[in-house]
């Protein structure tokens, strides 16, 4: 069903119609685990900075 809707969307674009479409970013947001790692690295960096 999703392939059909994508084909329909392509057709609609090429035909110049103005139908409703639902868009989302192609890129995924960072995972919680990755953000957690970043946060931990930042804390370590800040503690090193204050320790100097």
């Amino acid at each position, binding site marked *: *069903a*999703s392939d059909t*809707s*994508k084909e329909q*969307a392509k057709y*609609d*674009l090429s035909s110049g*119609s*103005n*139908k*409703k*479409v*639902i*868009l*989302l*970013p*192609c*890129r*995924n*947001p960072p*995972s*919680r685990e990755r*953000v*957690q790692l*970043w*946060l931990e690295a930042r*804390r370590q960096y800040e503690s090193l900075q204050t320790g100097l």
Partner: protein
Amino acid sequence: MTTLTRQDLNFGQVVADILCEFLEVAIHLILYVREVYPSGIFQKRKKYNVPVQNDAEKVVVVIMDKEHHPVERFVFEMSQPPLLSISSDTLLSHVEQLLRAFILKISVCDAVLNNNPPGCSFSVLVHTRDAATRNMEKVQVIKDFPWIVADEQEAHMQEPRLIPLKTMTSDIVKMQLYVEERAQKT
């Protein structure tokens, strides 16, 4: 009091700027309140900038479980009332007050929602028109951050519980916010 017409201040751009600023704050707050990310990454700010097309009819923040199935959908439905002129006072203070009420409602929405399963992620869906997508493709910032047509499973949730959060009607925009919550989250 100065009265400004749509032509005087590029009405559409002003509306878009106000809504973009509001949506950025609202999306960050949803991610914080619903614990999608660790609270340490969020900083307290007093003021309420997410690029969104002027032609967006609906912006949906979708929170998904580990299998990428939606568990919650925060739906911002927007439309523009047919008004010929607006006042600067109305634009700057009244609308911000109304939008502030949305932010406050989001900040306490966890009281009426069930906890989400661990490992959730999110996405933002924009309901718009073909003509808007053709305009988007010409903008460099969109070329660097491309948008695609959503799949059916990303766009809809089966038999959700509906939780109305807030509605507003102002001179520049009409908006309602509600949450669709999946009955069984785990």
